[in-house]
Every structure is written in structure tokens, then in C-alpha cells.
């Protein structure tokens, strides 16, 4: 199991060995969706957000 740092909150997120580019991971602490943008080296970034009106 690989690991990557959540770009939002900084915690360590486990990544399956067979993860694919473009796959979306969810941080277990802050719930942020992380998109795998590179496999070597393993790199994630904030996944594109659909705009929503939660809380409006």
C-alpha cells in the first residue's frame, strides 16, 4: 500500500497498489477528494469540484 500526503489537511492517505491515473481518493480526515495526477512519482491534487449550493 502506497501513501500520499493530503494536499488539503496534510494527513497521510493510503493508496492502493493498483491505483490508476485520474482515480479519485477521499481523505479520511478532511473528506477532500484527491485526484491522482501522476503515478511515478505518485502525486495527487485537489479533484475538480462541481459547484454546489450546500449551506445556501
Amino acid at each position, binding site marked *: 500500500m502506497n501513501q500520499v500526503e*493530503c494536499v*488539503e*489537511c*496534510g*494527513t497521510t492517505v493510503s493508496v492502493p497498489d493498483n491505483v490508476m491515473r485520474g482515480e479519485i481518493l*477521499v481523505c479520511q*480526515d*478532511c*473528506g*477532500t*477528494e484527491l485526484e491522482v495526477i501522476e503515478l511515478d512519482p505518485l502525486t495527487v491534487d485537489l479533484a475538480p469540484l462541481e459547484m454546489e449550493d*450546500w449551506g445556501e
Partner: protein
Amino acid sequence: MTIRNGSDRLTVGIVGGSGYTGGELLRLLLHHDGVAVTQVTSETHAGAPLPQVHPHLRGQTDLRFISRQRLAPCDVLFLAMPHGQAQAEIERYAGLAPRLIDLSADFRLRDADRYTRAYGHAHAAPAWLERFVYGLPEINRDALRDACYVSGVGCNATAVLLALWAPVRGGLLDAGQPLIADVKVGSSEAGNTPTAASHHPARSGVVRPFQLTGHRHEDEVRQALGDSFDVRIAVTSVEMVRGVAAAVHITLPAGLAERDLWACYRAAWTGEPFVRIVHTAQGLHRHPEPRLLAGTNYADVGWEYDPQTGRAALLCALDNLGKGAAGTAVQCLNLMCGFEETTGLSFGGFFP
């Protein structure tokens, strides 16, 4: 006092056990494997079986209420009477048990003058104030270990204090500003004595400003944080039986990243058994909510922060009868008597 081994348990009494806090204490202590509840007093209900007043205890105990005049010596005595009554007879209670845990407001403040200002009358036993340890383990754990006399906590004070604790401890919060705590509370905070204000046609459905300035729990929070922190508590009664939801409106430095706040909160709360960081980008339950905490000893903390301006709301939710009263008191019992801190407090809540 030494914890007895084998089948022996510490004997526990509850003085003033017919209120909501007493009922919650009993619910927890009757399933605590280190203690045996041996006596529970009520002047109003003396002679009655406990479940006659606390129906959720049916089938769990054969105890009946007794008058406090019939109290016998025991290992630990919980005092769960209305404010003002414990201080009036504290010498007698201390003579009955080597360990006292008072859930009222009588011994939370260390200073007699501060008590007089907050509660509007002189304390009846001011020499005892310094003998009590403030009973919030998250900020006072070391002092609670092996303490003999422990005060309870104010439910609203606890919510405000835990909401503020991480940024204060982490040095992110400048004391030179008003800290405005908007606190929404349920009806059980008012106790089980009916009043015109609690009458169902008058209480149901309310969003009723209760006390927006000068709340007496402000002194409890200032005592814990330091008087340089200008804590102001505004309480509103809402449609809820159990629960406290605090949002403390403050200004933090602008330009912080989310990971800065996460680091601050993790530094304060990692390893704490009953404080959870709730700050999530997904789902319905993104912030602390009291409804999810009913019957538990958890306090959930979180935040909302605007990096452009630094404006922030620091959040905490808890059950006023649980973490805000009886749950924390049992947590203190565990620390005082050398039990595992989480003993008897494992209930995790329910949903929906």
C-alpha cells in the same frame, strides 16, 4: 484510598439523584465495572424505586431513593444537587467519603470574589474553593489524577472552552479581541423542575434568546483560558432536548491554509479519547452536531475559516448531560481512582 481487587468494587453514592444529571450518572455508573452504586438520595422521592423517576433504568437496579440524612460512608460521593446546596454542607459530605465529585457550580471557580461576581452571593465555604480541582480532563488531566475533590463542569462553558482550546493552545488566537460565543442549547439544560418557560406550549418550537450577555459560565471559561481572553457567551434555547452547539466568532490571522488549522487541531486533540475533529468536505455532517452526540461523552470540534479576512467560527457540539455534566464526571472518577479513563463511557451514539 486503594482500589479493591477481585469482585469488590468502589462504593458510590449520589446525593441529589432525581434530576436529569443524576439520571445520566446512574445510567453510566450502573454499567461501570469498577464501582457499585449503593445509595442515591432524593428528598422529594425518598422511598421510591429509582425507575419511578428514571424510567430508562427499569430492570437495571433495585435501589430506592433515600433521604440525604440517611447517607452512609462510601468510597466516592457524587453531589448532583441544585447550585448552592453542596457548599452549604460540604464538611458533612467530606466526612462521608474520601472522594467527592460535585456536579454543581459550587466549586468550579477558584476565587471567592470571582464566585460572588458570577453568582451574585457570597460563597458559603470559600476555604474549600482551592481544595477542588476543575473537572475537565482535556485541560486538567494531571491535576485530576489522585485528586480527592473535583468540581463538575458547566455544559456551555465546556462547549465554548473546547471550541477555543486548540487555537489558544497553538498560539493562533490573539487575546485582544472579543470572543463571541453563540451557544444554542436544548431544554434539558433547564433541569427537571417545570416552569412557565418550560411548559410545552410555550417551549416547543422556540428559538428563544435566553441570556445574550453576562452569562455566568463566562467566568469559568476565563478562569481556564486566562482573564486576557474576553469571552462572551450568548445562549439561545432551541428545539432540542439534549445538546449544546457552540460557535465562537473570532478573527485569526488572515492567509492561513487549511493544513495550518488541521495541524493546530491535531496538536491539541490527537490522543484525546473523547474529543473528535469534525471538519470534512464531504457529506451532510461536515461540522459538529449535537444530535449525533446524545448519550455520549464525546465533544466534536471544528471550524469554518475565511483566509481572505481571517474571520472564523470555532465550533463545538456535545451532550449537555453527557460530556457537559455526568459523562465528564465519570471520566474524572476514572482518573481519580485509577481506572482506565474511558471505563463506562464507551457508548458511541446512534443515527438517525
